[in-house]
């Protein structure tokens, strides 16, 4: 039995104006095409322009990168898709980091319930926003690698948006943890110092390498708490020391605002980077 193939002009007709073929011929051709690669390629050759247009549409769907949950949330909040992608890649937004903060915060709050003293919580909590900001600036965490430093968007715009994005879940997690503190009057005492430290490390990052900036401020904070302890005596609860009393809170607020203002003045420095991390 000879191998039957569809006549070339039938194939061409089928390729270009399939609706115009009569039903029986079309049915015959269609059944044949299911089994014959040679005739299928005959159709393909006659229909060339269709193929590339259809491929472009398919590529557009299959190439699209999958958006992370964070990205989708940011887009829901009104951020344009491309910015949502960049901001969503902020390391401070990663579930692992936010969980760490929540665990640390709850742990410290648990200690407070046990011992009746919120000292551990108040000492640690303000440092965690600083940690989130540090993560945002670590060059090793930049998803685009070193090449990202040579792009137009590398600068204050993205840096500050990322910092703010990283701070939101940080403050939320700590806020929730602080609700577990025994005395609710102390529950918000960490907030302004935390803000001041975060703004401070952001400002210092325009002068020093990120890790150095973070270490300096952390040492400064520890030093401050130690000094206050020594001066005001061990019998006083940390929450009642000048750092967390209204005076201290006002100073923290003023420092935060000052740091933010200086950050704005020094924003050009965010587009440079020292790659020797």
């Amino acid at each position, binding site marked *: 039995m000879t191998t*039957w193939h569809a*006549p070339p*002009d*039938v194939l061409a*007709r*089928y*390729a270009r104006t*399939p*609706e*115009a*073929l*009569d*039903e*029986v*011929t*079309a*049915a*015959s051709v*269609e*059944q044949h*095409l*299911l*089994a014959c*690669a040679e005739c*299928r*390629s005959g*159709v*393909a050759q*006659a*229909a060339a322009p*269709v*193929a590339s247009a*259809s*491929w472009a*549409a*398919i590529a557009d*769907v*299959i190439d699209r990168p999958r958006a992370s949950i964070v990205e989708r949330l940011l887009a829901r909040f009104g951020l344009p898709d491309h910015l949502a992608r960049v901001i969503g890649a902020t390391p401070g937004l990663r579930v692992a980091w936010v969980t760490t903060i929540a665990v640390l915060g709850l742990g410290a709050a648990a200690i407070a319930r046990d011992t009746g003293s919120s000292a551990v919580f108040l000492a640690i909590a303000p440092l965690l926003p600083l940690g989130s900001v540090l993560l945002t600036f670590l060059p090793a965490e930049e998803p685009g690698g070193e090449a990202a430093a040579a792009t137009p968007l590398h600068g204050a715009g993205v840096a500050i948006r990322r910092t703010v994005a990283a701070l939101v879940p940080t403050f939320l997690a700590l806020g929730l943890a602080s609700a577990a503190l025994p005395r609710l009057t102390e529950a918000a005492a960490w907030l302004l110092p935390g803000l001041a430290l975060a703004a401070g490390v952001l400002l210092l990052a325009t002068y020093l390498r990120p890790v150095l900036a973070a270490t300096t401020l952390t040492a400064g904070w520890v030093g401050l708490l130690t000094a206050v302890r020594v001066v005001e005596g061990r019998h006083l609860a940390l929450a009642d020391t000048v750092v967390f009393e209204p005076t201290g809170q006002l100073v923290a607020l003023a420092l935060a605002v000052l740091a933010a203002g200086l950050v704005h003045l020094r924003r050009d420095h965010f587009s440079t980077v020292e790659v020797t991390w």
Partner: protein
Amino acid sequence: MDAVRTDAALLAALAEGDRGALRELHDRHAPWLSSRLRRRCADPDLAAEALQDTFVAVWKGAGRWDGRGEPAAWMWGIAIRRLIGVLRRRGRWTPVASPSGAAEEVVVAAEEQVLLSIEHGGLAAAMATLSPELRAVLQATVLDGLTTREAGHLLGIPAGTVKTRAMRARAELRGALT
């Protein structure tokens, strides 16, 4: 470049994420699938959408080809069901393109005409005696292998009507062929 791969090899490769394999498969099959879809749906844009959905579906689930039968037939199965999906989403029951016998006949050379009639003998004459609605139902249920429900979605008629028309079509065909 490398040797030409079979359809089966391409399906295996694209299940592993080989985008080039999908491209190759597309270039081979999109043209005939496109034509076949256009013969099931009057709106070429909907047919194009179904075609694209088909290849996206192949990309995402090529591992589901069981290795039996022709890949081409498997792909048509996906394509026709994607078309049904598109039609349902759009809520438009576009009538199936079924040219009546009065549509322009394909002009074929004499010996090819002979070959064609050997292929399907008296079927041509028998089919011509059926009404367009009955032919459409036959095409959907017999040629495309759709269930009565799927055929109903495609043709925009209730499944019950599909059943009755299919029975009538078969009876009339049997009568015309014997």
